């Protein structure tokens, strides 16, 4: 349930301040809602099973320009049990929309490709579009089942080393070294063709910390894919195979994320000097627009991750992990798990039973 609906419009200005035009945009607030929910759960303010509490998204009016200009927005979660919890988001959340909208101005001849511009976000109260009706049938939300293990974070931290920059605002992610070795090996074996798979494991909750964290236990190579040098298609059969693999393992694992390779050294970059390749954007781990769309479609929960293995020509393949950060997909740090951690208590959060991602050991 989403309250406080507003319509958002981006105003474009030249660097000299001349107005260039306005573009109405449909803002996807779902990642912000997910971020807020996870932040609430991590701080003990929202229950894991709380999926349908009233949520409002309200503009934060610009302190100097004032209404209708915004400097961000607030997502407020209103829980019957624990009261209100909110997270604020800056206009950085709109960056992707701004980039897309600016192409319309280029097409209209108001901007040249590569021009710099200034943008402002405005918001106006409105009514959301009515939910679509089925062909005479009724559709209602059901809380999904999520398998959550009650575990002590400290036991994982003691068995792991930090990789990359770890921000306390992000939930910890633990990945075994052997999983990193496997994806590296599969990337090298695939040579000039993209490959990929699924990251499966457990979601943990440490009520004492309090903290929520992710433990990857395995990677499942994607099958039934269509693979090319710069494209990897996950087909309907790929998802079926992944779910079957999870069920066959019978460890109560869930789908936590996905990984895919970038055969950088086989792209056009192969002719570049190594020193240039080291700083080239293509050699760094990155997510394409399609990668981001896939992640948003399937891995929209704030705890989900994506991994990119870049097979570069100047050394061993590099690994970059991405995750949701305030509703935006960004590179993030993680922990390399050096040894296995003992089993923890498994708790299945209530929801619809059945399905490959459900806990069955509860």
């Amino acid at each position, binding site marked *: 349930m989403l309250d406080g609906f507003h319509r958002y419009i981006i105003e474009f200005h030249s660097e000299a301040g001349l107005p260039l035009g306005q573009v109405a945009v449909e803002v996807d607030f779902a990642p912000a809602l997910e971020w807020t929910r996870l932040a609430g759960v991590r701080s003990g303010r929202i229950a894991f099973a709380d999926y349908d509490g009233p949520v409002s998204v309200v503009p934060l009016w610009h302190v100097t320009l004032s209404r209708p200009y915004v400097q961000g927005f607030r997502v407020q979660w209103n829980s019957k049990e624990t009261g209100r919890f909110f997270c604020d988001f800056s206009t950085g959340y709109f960056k992707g929309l701004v980039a897309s909208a600016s192409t319309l101005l280029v097409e209209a001849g108001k901007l040249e490709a590569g021009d710099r511009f200034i943008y402002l976000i405005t918001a106006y109260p409105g009514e959301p579009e009515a939910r679509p009706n089925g062909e005479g049938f009724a*559709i209602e939300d059901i809380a999904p089942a999520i398998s959550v293990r009650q575990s002590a974070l400290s036991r994982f931290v003691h068995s792991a080393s930090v990789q990359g920059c770890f921000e306390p605002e992000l939930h910890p992610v633990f990945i075994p070294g052997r999983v990193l070795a496997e994806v590296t090996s599969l990337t090298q074996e695939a040579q000039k063709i993209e490959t990929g798979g699924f990251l499966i494991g457990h979601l943990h909750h440490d009520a004492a910390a309090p903290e929520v964290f992710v433990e990857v236990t395995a990677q499942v190579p994607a099958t039934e894919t269509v693979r090319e040098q710069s494209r990897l298609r996950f087909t*309907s059969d790929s998802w079926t195979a992944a779910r079957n693999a999870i069920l066959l393992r019978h460890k109560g694992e869930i789908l936590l994320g996905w990984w895919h390779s970038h055969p950088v050294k086989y792209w056009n970059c192969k002719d570049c000097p190594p020193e240039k390749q080291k700083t080239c954007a*293509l050699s760094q781990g990155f997510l394409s*627009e*399609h990668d981001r769309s896939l992640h948003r479609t399937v*891995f929209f929960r704030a705890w989900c991750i994506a991994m990119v293995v870049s097979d570069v020509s100047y050394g061993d393949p590099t690994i970059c992990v991405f995750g949701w950060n305030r509703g935006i997909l960004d590179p993030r740090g993680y922990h390399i798990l050096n040894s296995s951690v003992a089993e923890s208590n498994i708790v299945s959060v209530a929801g619809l039973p059945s399905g490959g991602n459900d806990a069955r050991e509860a």
Partner: protein
Amino acid sequence: MGSAGTAGLTLFAADVSQQKVRRVSNIGLEVTVRELTDSLLAEMKLPQNDPEGRPVTYYALLEREGRQLQSWEKLGDVVQSGDRVVLQPNIDAGRIRPACGGRPH
């Protein structure tokens, strides 16, 4: 095969992550898989086009049988009340245009 009463079929539908789950009730026996899928995609706000505007194809997997339903099949012929279907996309990663010196997109 359908076992609906006068009120029609009831089934459960999930997206591929199993994180969006819907109960669909009062489904007429003549409703096709495509009609159900189209309504669910809109209701679950699942993208129907990729970033380049090409349509994303979704298949409905009937978990009980482990098979993909055909879009033209009538639900009254293929599902039972209480069945669970999973909407699974054919979806692309990558699709970058590698170009030295340029930003990937």
